[in-house]
């Protein structure tokens, strides 16, 4: 079945975003429930337990865990086999969010104050550590569910992903905090691959396929597909930060306040005249606390003036196209299933969501 047909089927029933929403809801629920099982309600460590359970209970799209489950099921495994790994993904994700929020000095997360805003950085940091280490438990419990060897493979994958994510995060933070002005588009893509795509799409696809195929599929084949999907996802995220409506998770223009090197920023800087570029660099050189609303407004205007938002949108669409191409090659021989359709529908969804 060609991708067009797959998508047509996906949209024939519930709409494409309907299918995605449905599956995210179902698998998200399963992952969430599994995560809850690991929160030991009988041992509510003071200053820790309540912080640890906070972010996971705030909800979220559950895209990463759902992708993992759908991938495993598309390759033939049952929900039970994949749900532990999906839970681990959610725990890791939320732990990383806690740390991200500290690193970005964000005030708000999913409509409520960030954890460190409520409890201070030291305790929030500790809770983030705990949450990430807690993810080891379901990964160890995998031994019973998928066998020792596969459990080890999943752990290996997790280690690789953790390293890539840390390296990616380092790039992003380093560029921002040390004001690297030489960041190119290729650098940006590389950073997004490591920081976002590896964790959000590549890793769930890889471990899902490992579990589903019982180790027969080479996880490496998902690199391209995973990257294109994850990069489009990230670019859309960055776009929403500039143009999204208020229901979106972070503050409007928050990235500009942060000085985050987004595709739009890089593009705008590259398109600027030499004079403007100097202003650009000066504005970005200032530490975050000294960045004013006017500074941000200027950056915003520069971005709009040079059509950077449209540019980034086009790049994201191109990446979606590339993801569709890779999807068609990867999944052609898999039997038809709702999960396969879901994965196909995810590709345009990453851009459609608002």
């Amino acid at each position, binding site marked *: 079945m060609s991708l067009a047909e797959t998508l047509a089927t996906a949209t024939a029933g519930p709409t494409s975003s309907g299918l995605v929403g449905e599956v995210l809801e179902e698998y998200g629920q399963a992952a969430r429930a599994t995560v809850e099982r690991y929160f030991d309600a009988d041992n509510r460590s003071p200053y820790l337990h309540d912080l640890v359970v906070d972010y996971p209970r705030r909800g979220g799209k559950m895209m990463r865990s759902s992708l993992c489950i759908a991938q495993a099921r598309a*390759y033939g495994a049952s929900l039970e086999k994949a749900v532990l790994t999906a839970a681990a993904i959610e725990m890791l994700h939320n732990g990383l969010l806690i740390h991200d929020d500290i690193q970005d000095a964000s005030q708000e997360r999913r409509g409520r104050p960030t954890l460190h805003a409520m409890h201070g950085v030291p305790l929030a940091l500790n809770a983030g550590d705990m949450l990430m280490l807690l993810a080891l438990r379901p990964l160890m419990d995998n031994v019973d569910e998928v066998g020792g*060897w596969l459990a080890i493979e999943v752990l290996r994958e997790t280690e*690789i992903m953790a*390293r*890539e994510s840390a390296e990616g995060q380092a790039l992003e933070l380093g560029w921002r905090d040390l004001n690297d002005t030489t960041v190119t*588009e*290729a650098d940006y*893509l*590389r950073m997004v*691959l*490591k920081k976002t795509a590896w964790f959000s799409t590549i890793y769930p696809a890889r471990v899902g*396929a490992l579990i589903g*195929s019982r*180790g*027969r*599929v*080479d996880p*490496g*084949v998902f*690199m*391209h597909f995973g*990257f*294109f999907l994850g*990069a489009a996802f990230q670019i859309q995220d960055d776009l929403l930060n500039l143009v999204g409506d208020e229901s979106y998770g972070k503050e409007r223009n928050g990235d500009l306040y942060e000085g985050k090197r987004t595709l739009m920023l890089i593009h705008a800087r590259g398109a600027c005249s030499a004079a403007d570029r100097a202003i650009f660099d000066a504005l970005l050189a200032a530490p975050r606390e000294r960045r004013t609303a006017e500074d941000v407004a200027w950056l915003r205007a520069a971005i709009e003036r040079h059509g950077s938002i449209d*540019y980034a949108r*086009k*790049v994201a*669409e*191109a*990446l979606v*196209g*590339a993801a569709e*191409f*890779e999807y068609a*090659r*990867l999944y*052609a*021989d*898999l039997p038809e299933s709702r999960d396969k359709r879901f994965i196909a529908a995810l590709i345009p969804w990453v851009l459609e969501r608002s």
Partner: protein
Amino acid sequence: MARDDERLHRPPPQRPGPRRAVIPEAEGVNGRAVDSGGQGSAGDDVASRAVNAAYRVVEDNIQEGRRAAERLRGAGPAPAEASPGARAIAGRLMHLTRDLGGTWVDLILAVLKEPEVRAVIDRLTLHDRGPVASMSSAVALAPSPAMSVTQRVSSRKPVEVTLSPLPALARSVAPAVAGLHALSPASPPIDQVALTRRPDGGLELAITIADDQPADTYWGALVDVDSRQPIGTLTVRILE
């Protein structure tokens, strides 16, 4: 002769032959970027440049990952270098060798471990120690003290005792035997059987046989009380 359009033609079959490959190929792609033509939409330039850049980035990352894996593993170059297809096959072969090797070992072990099977093999070899008419004799069945078993058989009749332990017996903390039974209903079970640990780690087997115990062959399984795994069999033949 019929004209082509008058004749019916066979439909082509689904495929020309059987699919013999055991491992279905989840088609790994070499994933080389399609040149500009692929993404065909307005803003082709932007799109194709971005996609090309993206392909280069991910390919680099894959290479990086491989080199890191080699360094971390400390071994030589990964089995099949360049093409992901060959590497995938090498990986699968490795898994299968492991699976098959392990399963074949399971086959041998499973068979050898079955107490009934061990009993058969041992019966075929007929350890012949001669009748034991009186109180006790110390019989070392294997070199290590942990494996040595002292027999104390109390019986007026000639008796032949065979203990066939599995290696697990040496490690078992709590071996036990639950009585010895014969096949014939006319022969009542021998209940006074006990297996205890000696201070030096060996075992002592104590059997008491009643004067009127019928001549027959009695069997019992040795079980480890904690793990409930069979660890050997005990056979007692009363010769007259």
